[in-house]
């Protein structure tokens, strides 16, 4: 049986404790945190410690910034690596599993003008391998994992499919770097999402869920039983973390997710 998590911003309530109360009632097993830049996540440590003392389960953090470790600009890249290291350390301090980041988001798309990025594929690869190695070594030292998330072609031009992430991770060669898959991006990029999951099975470290239209699972047309069946067959026993927009009444929408996922998983 899968465990489910919900990103904190989707849950009603003014504090993590209130959000947790709602999440538990809805059937979630955990809250996925969001990590803003400028060391905001580190600065939340007292709040997070209190929540943890009150029983809130927070195994993962998903980066919530506008620049990433694959940025074109070296300064932004350096800052993104520093932020991610800090987020990995904080989630380790909370006894969590790891932090998720894409290579970039909203920086460039080969499908939109001007089509040709300012950096070559070889240079992209060099930057990604360097960043993943530095972050992976930090994660290993902290006893947690960095989850590399492939995004769809309109949001990132470097890592779109699971096999691309897998190739980078195998090259880096660190167990502390794994793929953080996302059902929505896979729906756009993978020929057969279920087969794609099986093909990289041992490298999957985390899973985020939203439907074909980015809304909560159940609101679109993804073949959830096939996708979840493949994750189960892959031996994945981590969290399914809802990272989505909401359609319909937002509270009802968030509440509907765990039951929907459990039913679809059979």
């Amino acid at each position, binding site marked *: 049986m899968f465990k489910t998590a919900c990103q904190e911003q989707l849950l009603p309530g003014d504090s993590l404790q209130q959000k947790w109360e709602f999440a538990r009632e809805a059937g979630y097993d955990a809250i996925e945190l969001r990590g803003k830049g400028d060391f905001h996540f580190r600065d939340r440590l007292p709040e997070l410690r209190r929540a943890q003392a009150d029983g809130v389960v927070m195994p993962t953090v998903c980066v919530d910034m506008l620049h990433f470790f694959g940025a074109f600009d070296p300064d932004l890249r350096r800052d993104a690596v520093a932020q991610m290291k800090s987020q990995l350390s904080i989630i380790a301090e909370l006894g969590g599993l790891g932090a998720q980041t894409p290579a970039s988001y909203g920086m460039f798309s080969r499908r939109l003008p001007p089509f040709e990025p300012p950096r070559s594929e070889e240079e992209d690869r060099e930057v990604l391998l360097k960043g993943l190695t530095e972050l992976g070594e930090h994660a290993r030292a902290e006893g947690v994992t960095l989850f590399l998330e492939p995004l769809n072609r309109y949001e990132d031009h470097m890592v779109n499919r699971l096999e691309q992430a897998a190739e980078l991770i195998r090259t880096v060669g660190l167990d502390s770097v794994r793929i953080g898959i996302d059902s929505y991006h896979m729906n756009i990029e993978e*020929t*057969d999402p*279920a*087969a794609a999951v*099986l093909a990289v099975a041992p490298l999957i470290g985390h899973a985020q869920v939203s439907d074909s239209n980015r809304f909560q699972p159940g609101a679109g047309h993804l*073949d959830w*039983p*096939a996708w979840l*069946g*493949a994750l*189960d*067959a892959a*031996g994945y026993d981590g969290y399914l973390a809802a990272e989505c927009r909401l359609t319909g009444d937002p509270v009802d929408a968030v509440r509907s997710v765990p039951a929907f996922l459990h039913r679809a998983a*059979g």
Partner: protein
Amino acid sequence: MTAVLEPALRSPGREEDQDAALRRAAARVLLSNWTGAATVPSRTLYPHQWSWDSAFIAIGLARLAPRRAQRELETLLGAQWRDGRVPHIVFNPSVPLDAYFPSPDFWRSSGAGAASGAPADIETSGIVQPPVHALAAWQVHLADPAESRRRGFLRRMYPRLAAWHRYLAASRDLGGGGLAAVVHPWEPGLDNSPVWDAALARVEPAPPESFRRADLDHSSAADRPTDLDYGRYVRLAADYRDHGYDDARTPHAFALEDPCFNALFIASEHALAEIAAAAGADPAPHRRKAAEATAALVERLWDPAAGIFLARDLTTGEAVGGHSVAGLVPLIVPGLPETVARSLVATAQGERFGLGRVHLVPSYDLTSPEYDGNRYWRGPSWFNTAWLVHRGLRQHGADPAADALREQALDDARRTGFAEYVEPHSGQGRGIRRFSWTAALALDLLHRTPQGEPAR
């Protein structure tokens, strides 16, 4: 001591773990053999879509991914001919012609079959396989009725399945007795069963240089049909093709009424009645047809002395003496007379099939000189026939035998890596591995109702 030890050896936790591992392994086979719109029986030996394979695969796929199970059947029925026939192979146009023989350029369905309503844009074979499809469609619907209704699955499937059954009932009633005939040994599914030997021996083989087998590239020749028999298969198919796949016009050198084929027709006709009702059509004609065909099955093919159903050769008008698992499959027919059902269970448990003492259900009489435990359908035990016999045993209340067969099928599937078939005495896997219907039917047998009962 044994009685004390047994519960410890079979602790529920361990069994659950084993079942979960088997379920995951079976899911990996089915997800890997999925090609986007349907499932290949095997990535190596069988690179296209097979008719009865797809039906069995859909039954298991429904336990994993109901929408894919629906797509599986929709894709197959999408290649249906206008005369209603569902071809035994639907060719994948992106696979090289020499990957499988007989290939599309042998069958030439879109040309030779045009008058019989073969699709113009999809290449298929011209013969058929047992009609498991309505039975499968109903099981697929029941696995997720909400998804089925949302997609209009039954409403779209019903006219096609009804046309398929009309084709069999009208064009294939070559004996005029209310049963469907098969006109090629590949049609009943048990391709090289000794039951066909005598009828096949009357067929002039096609010259060996006129065809090239592809099956031996991936399988041991000792496990597969002989070259001489292959030449006869080719001749029968070529004659049918050269008569435009027109059943009335073809001088069938091979025409038999097979008990398994007709039992599946009847079970599917019952399912078709349920589908008709759910799709807003009249179920009564299907119930009537099922009852008539059941009476015909018993009257024409039941041998009370031997306690088994026998194929009838329409050329000689005689019953064929050999005992094959096909003769036990009518156990799945709802409403079979109880005396017949009891006798069938006794035959299954007797020396000819050894149910409970050998692995699964041998495809042919263990005591016969023709029995060969390694050669395809001349003795090996297959998972689809075991699944059918299991269903029949449950239907007739033989639960202990059904439970044992279920356990054995799951164990053999696990042990052999989802082999195509097993040697009945040793249980060793034969043929190819990661075979789709073996994985699919294991998934179905693993499924339990919310009350914890095994699926029926």
